[in-house]
């Protein structure tokens, strides 16, 4: 599966469109990470626990989107977008969406 956030893929021609595919996940932070983050909040700086948490959730959302695209018979997702929103206190939704397409390698014109 090829993923890009551009409209086309170099060296490949889009032969079929399958429309929108999306994947999302809503995650809550856990108490252990929250406690450490609370301490870290005093001095500022990176909250590594949260960075990892959001990375994991993003991978999960991407995975769901890829599964949806595979079901449609696509082999690439172009024009990928991400969006994050907080649904409730301590919970965040990670959404990724794009256009599922089938691509074929372009023959180099010689």
């Amino acid at each position: 599966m090829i993923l890009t956030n551009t409209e086309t893929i170099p060296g490949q021609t889009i032969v079929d469109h399958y429309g929108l595919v999306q994947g999302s996940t809503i995650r809550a932070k856990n108490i252990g990470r929250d406690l450490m983050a609370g301490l870290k909040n005093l001095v500022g700086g990176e909250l590594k626990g949260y960075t990892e948490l959001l990375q994991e959730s993003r991978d999960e959302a991407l995975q769901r989107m890829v599964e949806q695209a595979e079901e449609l018979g696509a082999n690439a997702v172009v024009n990928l977008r991400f969006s994050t929103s907080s649904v409730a206190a301590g919970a965040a939704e990670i959404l990724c969406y794009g256009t599922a397409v089938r691509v074929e390698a372009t023959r180099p014109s010689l």
Partner: protein
Amino acid sequence: MIQLYFVLAFLFLGLSVGSLLERLHYRRIRRRELGFATQPVVTFGMFPADKTIVHAELALGSVVISVDYFKRFAASLKKLFGGEIHSYSSLLDRARREALLRLKESCADADLILNLRFETSTISNGNNSNIGSVEVLAFATAVWYQTCDQRPEVLAG
């Protein structure tokens, strides 16, 4: 009374340790940025027509950064009068530069980074609506050019 001591201690901690950590972080950011000075990053999605591209893939970089206690206190005071809140601008600046650096580190040998986008979101703390911490995600398409030793057959595969 004891609460006042706690607040003063937290303020002092935020002011001293927080600003030290920020200076160290900025020093790290500047050093790493120098290493990527020659790698072009653009915000448009057009592929260069004069180059043969052999590979393109999604590149991500993200970070969650929080502001220290002193700056949060200073910002809440500043909110009474309005105007620019400088303590938050350094927070967002650090977060964006760090996210971009992580993106670049994930594809350090790419020839060009296309269609760079930033996505910023606040992590809500529940009890107060202050900006405690922000998450910045940078995403882009990294491309690799064909080098002289690669034959055109590689492209087709």
